[in-house]
């Protein structure tokens, strides 16, 4: 994999003053959330590492453009989502149609409103990744965003460019689809 640091983006001017403390604070506060989103959205630890590095580097360069109108977390998520979606497009890893998600639980015999029970947490990460990989990118992203308690539905809606009602509806379906697929990984 090529080093993203060597890309043309190095030509972009960095912030006028390099706010070292601000960078350190942003990374300390949000790196786990950004890395987790990249990890589970892309499904590959190495790519997630690269993506997290690139996202924060982009953020640092554009720090002077961040005006505090949104939260830093939301701002970083926006950069991360764009970055990861571009990567998925580049790799032709997009899943098929979003509607195929619904077909999974429409005809599923399993109850989708029962709790997700996990007996063995050792391989939980693999089960979660397998489940997420089988979801559409849209449902995957929505579930990953709603898992962050710092985000409201309104913020999630703004991040994905949809209405809050649409997000609620899609999340309802995404949860059910996830439950069915997760059960199949047991």
């Amino acid at each position: 994999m090529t080093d993203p640091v060597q890309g043309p983006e190095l030509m972009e001017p960095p912030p006028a003053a390099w706010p070292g403390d601000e960078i350190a604070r942003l990374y300390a506060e949000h790196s786990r959330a950004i890395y987790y989103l990249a990890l589970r959205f892309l499904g590959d630890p190495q790519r997630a590492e690269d993506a997290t590095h690139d996202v924060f580097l982009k953020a640092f360069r554009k720090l002077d453009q961040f005006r505090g109108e949104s939260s830093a977390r939301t701002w970083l998520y926006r950069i991360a989502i764009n970055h990861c979606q571009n990567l998925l497009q580049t790799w032709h890893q997009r899943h098929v149609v979003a509607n195929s998600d619904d077909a999974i639980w429409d005809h599923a015999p399993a109850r989708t409103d029962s709790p997700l029970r996990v007996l063995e947490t050792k391989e939980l990460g693999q089960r979660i990744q397998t489940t997420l990989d089988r979801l559409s990118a849209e449902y995957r992203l929505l579930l990953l965003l709603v898992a962050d308690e710092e985000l409201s539905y309104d913020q999630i809606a703004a991040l994905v460019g949809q209405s809050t009602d649409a997000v609620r509806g899609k999340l309802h379906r995404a949860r059910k689809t996830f439950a069915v697929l997760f059960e199949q990984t047991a």
Partner: protein
Amino acid sequence: MKQESQFSSDEQHRHESGQESHHQTAREFATAEELLRFDAAQTVVPPPIAERLKQSAAQLAPPPRRAWWQKLFGR
């Protein structure tokens, strides 16, 4: 904030079979996001990212400082 998330506490179940008894820990998650939240909490950010980031940041040279008259006239 989100209202639909439901939280359930971890459950510990004891299973006994015949003369042998053992503890088995089961976790229940009411929703997918609760499961993902648990997963996220277990996830460790690889330390090399911070190191790479530090090196990348060091490569970014600060832009030339603008003269006072450029700042004044917005050039």
